[in-house]
């Protein structure tokens, strides 16, 4: 918006009276810039600390630094329990994502395309898991499974995550569906195309980016989930549960190493999703 103003060729903008002395603007600019810098430092310093200390051979994380080392990475990657936990987390995240998509996309379609009795209540209901604290989803599903006599395992964790995060897919796909022209679907139906084919050829390409974006988010959140997992897990640990119990036993630099790897992977995922999601939006704006 600011650039638009400046690019205006007419003299009208320039003739506007000078509003403030420069020094005043500079002062508030500088003060705000300093605050912004501090907030960014506040957000990133702890993460940076974690990453730096994963390469440090101090057994206790303290200053001054010791020597550089990769031993914590070696330890982390040769720890069978930790590797098993990573494997479990991957299984959970992939399966939970599959559930979220399988149930989330039809739910979004139902909310966007159809009117049915109780729709408002239904819409409120399905977004509850992301509005309410995770602990409530965890506790209520624990009660549910115990009433059914289901034994806790990775399967219950997967169902829990699928329930907890489907709302992310629903809201994002729903928002996209609301924006695209319904007449295209009608045209496709009028031309005798079957609904399923219309979905593949017309609807899906239109909601593709929202599906990819929410999938990445669901995957990351599930990989990292604690409050629901805490109540629904059986004997198998997911990675966050492993880290949680390790932290409670005491701090080990191994956690820094695995943490650094997780952060690196998350950042790669963000960059990928940013390229996929932000680029088209900017291109559209430039056009």
């Amino acid at each position: 918006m600011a650039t638009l103003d400046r690019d205006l060729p007419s003299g009208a903008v320039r003739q506007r009276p000078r509003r403030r002395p420069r020094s005043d603007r500079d002062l508030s600019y500088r003060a705000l810039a300093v605050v912004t810098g501090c907030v960014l430092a506040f957000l990133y310093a702890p993460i940076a600390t974690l990453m730096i200390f994963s390469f440090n051979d101090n057994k206790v994380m303290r200053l001054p630094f010791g020597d550089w080392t990769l031993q914590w990475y070696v330890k982390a990657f040769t720890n069978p329990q930790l590797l098993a936990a990573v494997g479990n987390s991957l299984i959970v995240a992939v399966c939970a994502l599959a559930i979220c998509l399988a149930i989330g996309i039809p739910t979004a379609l139902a909310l966007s395309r159809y009117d049915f009795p109780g729709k408002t209540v239904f819409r409120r209901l399905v977004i509850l898991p992301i509005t309410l604290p995770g602990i409530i989803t965890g506790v209520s599903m624990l009660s549910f499974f115990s009433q059914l006599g289901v034994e806790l395992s990775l399967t219950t964790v997967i169902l829990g995550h699928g329930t907890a995060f489907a709302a992310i897919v629903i809201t994002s796909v729903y928002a996209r569906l609301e924006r695209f022209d319904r007449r295209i679907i009608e045209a496709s139906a009028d031309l005798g195309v079957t609904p399923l084919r219309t979905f593949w050829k017309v609807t899906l390409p239109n909601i593709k980016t929202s599906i990819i974006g929410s999938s990445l988010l669901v995957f990351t959140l599930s990989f990292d989930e604690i409050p629901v997992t805490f109540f629904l897990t059986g004997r198998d640990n997911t990675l966050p549960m492993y880290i949680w119990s390790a932290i409670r036993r005491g701090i080990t630099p191994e956690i820094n190493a695995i943490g650094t790897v997780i952060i690196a992977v998350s950042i790669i995922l963000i960059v990928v999703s940013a390229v996929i999601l932000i680029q088209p939006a900017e291109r559209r704006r430039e056009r």
Partner: protein
Amino acid sequence: MRYARRRRLEFAALVSAPVIWWVVVLLVPYIIMLMISFYRTQFPFHVPDFQIANYLKIFAESQYVTILLRSLKISIFVSIVTFALAYPLTYFLVFKVRSPRVRTIIYVATIVPLWVSYLLRVYTWKIVLGTEGILNTFLIWVGVVNEPIEVLIYNQFAMVITMAYIFTPFMVMPIYATLEKIPRSLIEGSKDLGVGSIGTFLRITLPLSVPGILVGFTFTFCFSFGDFISPRLVGGPYSNMISNVISTQFGQAMDWPFGSALSMIMLFIVLAVITASDRFERAGRLDLG
């Protein structure tokens, strides 16, 4: 004819299936939790009953009232701290930064930490603030203090800092969205009429950003209120929140009916906060109309 039947089939598949699924995995568990909250505990089992002793216990025993009030207090503090951090940053981005590219980069940079493991972000504060932690050893190393400062961790201060750190992005996002939507002409107009920067801010920008602030407060409040990880890791002995009590009831204490009652109270408070902020936000929007 065939078209109508197909529509009906489509309706059945697209509406009935999701509705049934969500009723089974979401509504039924909530109802079961509500039922259990009326049950009676005969340690270590719970027996079906219909009585409200579990709810009365929350308000009759002072320790639970204290914990409930503490949870509210901490969550409000966290919201205030995140607001104090997020607002200047967002204001700077929207009104002071000229280059859209720089603005996008800084905005994304404040959101990115959300993607970094929640647990790890709590954990980093444990290593930063710990008695043998980075901050203390740094201060000793530089010579500011001779002995580790004990008050940095395992108290409510550490908890508020940690949670504020975690939830700041949730405050930034909605405030950014509302500030971005404020018409520049209003601000220019106010300045052309001779109102100073501070006056313009207080009379135009701040009131118009109230909806975003409300959403931000609601987010951070609800998330902090339900958090049981940070209190456990950096909170210390006097920092139990209601969510910690709930997790204990479903764990060692084996008192599911009491835990369910606490969960229902939490659910009620969170829904009340969300509904109230929704009402205010809508009222605010009408006001602008």
